[in-house]
């Protein structure tokens, strides 16, 4: 007699059900249905999959995460998560749901840009949303991308009309509050021809003993457009964050993403960039400063589909305590993508015996006239430099900090907004405070 077993995947998916999306336009329901269909054919990610070799989700699979709206939150609490001195539009989401009363919404149809939530846009601006939503996330094999596509509650919608410039950055604040929350924020950013936008994504926690934030960012960068994304992940140590960022670039466009995973339990970032027009540039920078038991897995994929494009990738990692950093950077150069310039570099510094780093570059090049380079290093701070600083009277703790700032500074310099950069620096300093304090004694 066959026994009926409920797999982790079944239980996980059953727990996500019960949200009512029937009010959505058919075109959007189709996206959800397609994702559900894809999920039928997929297993819950395990270490057996090459993609998940170094990140173990066994524990996640046993936990009964469910979508939940948050209790009422006081404005003071929300304000704590706005980046200090940042002159920006703020959009606030809690557990995936929009919080309009804390947000600066721009929905004026005459405006050069829109800053609102996706659910509103799906109704009010369906013509702007429909051509883009879900077009980059059709991959059948990505479990969590499909989970988000199927169950996403809401997210930000940012639209900049051609030749316009978003006059201030937008900070999209996503917060998790409550136990066993499953949040599926999904942002869509559409920047038309020759337009410009800067968006700061911050992921934080109000309070939780255990949570899952499974996020997606879809970015459409049209011809000649300029888009910068700063993504700062600072959730608490009980939170899993699994995210995927997609950028689709047309010719002459520039897209920059700065990724800063600072806190959490397990963080997985999948970055997918498609250079789909000639003469476009993608910049991928990562500043990864880890302490405690955090496990951070950054996977990047840059697809050079057209000639004369450039990609610059620099990920720098400093790992302390028992933390782990994984980097897997893939560059794919299509056979027609001649004159491609693709650079990738991943440098890791281990500050403790138990800290771990794992780096894997993957180049697949089918064009013959290209310039590609990659390099990975894993090491410690340069002893010679440390001694030189100390020989000049600089305390060991200060000297370490000086070297850390110099190392990570090369990445942080790419964050163009001063307030965001200051915030990033502050998070990093906080992570290594105990390290430097311990050295002082």
């Amino acid at each position, binding site marked *: 007699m066959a026994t009926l077993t409920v797999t982790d995947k079944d239980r996980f998916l059953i727990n996500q059900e019960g949200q009512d999306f029937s009010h959505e336009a058919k075109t959007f329901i189709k996206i959800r249905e397609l994702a559900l269909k894809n999920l039928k054919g997929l297993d819950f990610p395990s270490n057996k999959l090459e993609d998940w070799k170094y990140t173990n989700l066994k524990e996640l699979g046993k936990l009964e995460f469910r979508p939940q709206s948050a209790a009422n939150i006081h404005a003071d609490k929300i304000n704590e998560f706005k980046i200090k001195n940042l002159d920006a539009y703020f959009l606030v989401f809690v557990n995936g749901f929009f919080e309009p009363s804390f947000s600066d919404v721009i929905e004026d149809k005459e405006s050069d840009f829109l800053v609102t939530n996706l659910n509103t846009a799906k109704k009010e601006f369906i013509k702007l949303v429909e051509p883009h939503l879900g077009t980059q996330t059709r991959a059948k094999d990505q479990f969590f991308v499909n989970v988000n596509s199927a169950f996403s509650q809401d997210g930000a919608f940012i639209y900049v009309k051609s030749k316009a410039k978003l006059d201030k950055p937008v900070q999209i604040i996503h917060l998790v509050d409550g136990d066993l929350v499953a949040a599926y924020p999904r942002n869509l950013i559409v920047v038309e021809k020759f337009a410009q936008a800067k968006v700061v994504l911050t992921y934080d926690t109000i309070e939780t003993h255990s949570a899952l934030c499974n996020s997606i960012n879809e970015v459409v960068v049209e011809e000649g457009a300029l888009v910068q994304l700063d993504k700062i992940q600072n959730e608490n140590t009980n939170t899993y964050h699994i995210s995927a960022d997609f950028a689709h670039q047309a010719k002459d466009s520039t897209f920059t993403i700065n990724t800063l995973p600072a806190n959490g339990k397990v963080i997985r970032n999948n970055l997918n960039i498609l250079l789909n027009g000639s003469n476009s540039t993608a910049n991928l920078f990562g500043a990864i400063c880890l302490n405690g038991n955090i496990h951070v897995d950054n996977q990047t994929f840059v697809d050079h589909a057209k000639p004369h494009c450039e990609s610059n990738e620099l990920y720098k990692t400093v790992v302390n305590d028992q933390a782990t950093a994984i980097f897997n950077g893939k560059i794919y150069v299509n056979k027609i993508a001649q004159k491609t310039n693709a650079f990738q570099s991943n440098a890791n510094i281990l500050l403790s015996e138990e800290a771990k780093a794992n780096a894997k570059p993957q180049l697949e090049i089918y064009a013959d006239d290209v310039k590609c380079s990659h390099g990975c290093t894993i090491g410690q701070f*340069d002893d*010679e*430099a440390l*001694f*030189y*600083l*100390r*020989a*000049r*009277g*600089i*305390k*060991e703790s*200060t*000297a370490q900090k*000086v*070297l850390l*700032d*110099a*190392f990570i*500074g*090369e990445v942080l310099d790419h964050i163009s907004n001063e307030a965001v950069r200051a915030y990033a620096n502050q998070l990093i300093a906080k992570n290594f405070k105990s390290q430097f304090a311990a050295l002082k004694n």
Partner: protein
Amino acid sequence: MLKIKGLKAEIEGKEILKGLNLEVNPGEVHAIMGPNGSGKSTLASVLAGREEYEVTAGSVHFEGKDLLELAPEERAGEGVFLAFQYPVEIPGVSNINFIKTAVNEVREYRGLPNLETKEFMTLLKEKQQLVELSGKLANRSVNEGFSGGEKKRNEIFQMAMLDPKLGVLDETDSGLDIDALRIVSHGVNELKSKDNAFVVVTHYQRLLDYIVPDYVHVLLDGKIVKTGSKELALELEEKGYDWIIKELEEEKL
């Protein structure tokens, strides 16, 4: 000021300093000469506190304090300065921030308040001029892409900024052309006073034309085997070290 007695030191199990004695008093300049590999830089490193070297015997006292007990930064605070034979390049750390941090940390150690920005800038300009170091180098990363001469002048510049009691110059003259040599020597001579002292490691007597030593020591196989006046330097340059080795062997017999 500095008293080294029977100092033995090893690295990776290999004994380099084999019972070295040296005494330096305020106002003095000591030159140390010796063949390659004899242990000159090892001595300088041990004085500055490089942790790779293990001191197995002997003592080093600086103004009555046990120097070997102190961390490198504490030694700098006490007033020991080492001009490196090979200054280290530190990408991403600007020269000016580096020296500002160093000056203020050393001041803190000495119980002095931080310098106001204006005071610091005045001091900086003055000392840059002393060694004719271009102001442009201030904003570059420490020693990164500096020419050999610029690196050495940067060492003397740092020494001037930190105002040590004992300056140990490890082959600061190597690789310098005549002009640079004059500039560096001029810097050292300007800093010289009755209260401080210098230990100058060199292979060439020409430096000693500019920085005139009170004593010249010969370091051979981890020991100071001969001490003389500045004329000894001339003799060494002319005749090399073989005659000293011979002399020593004859003494033994």
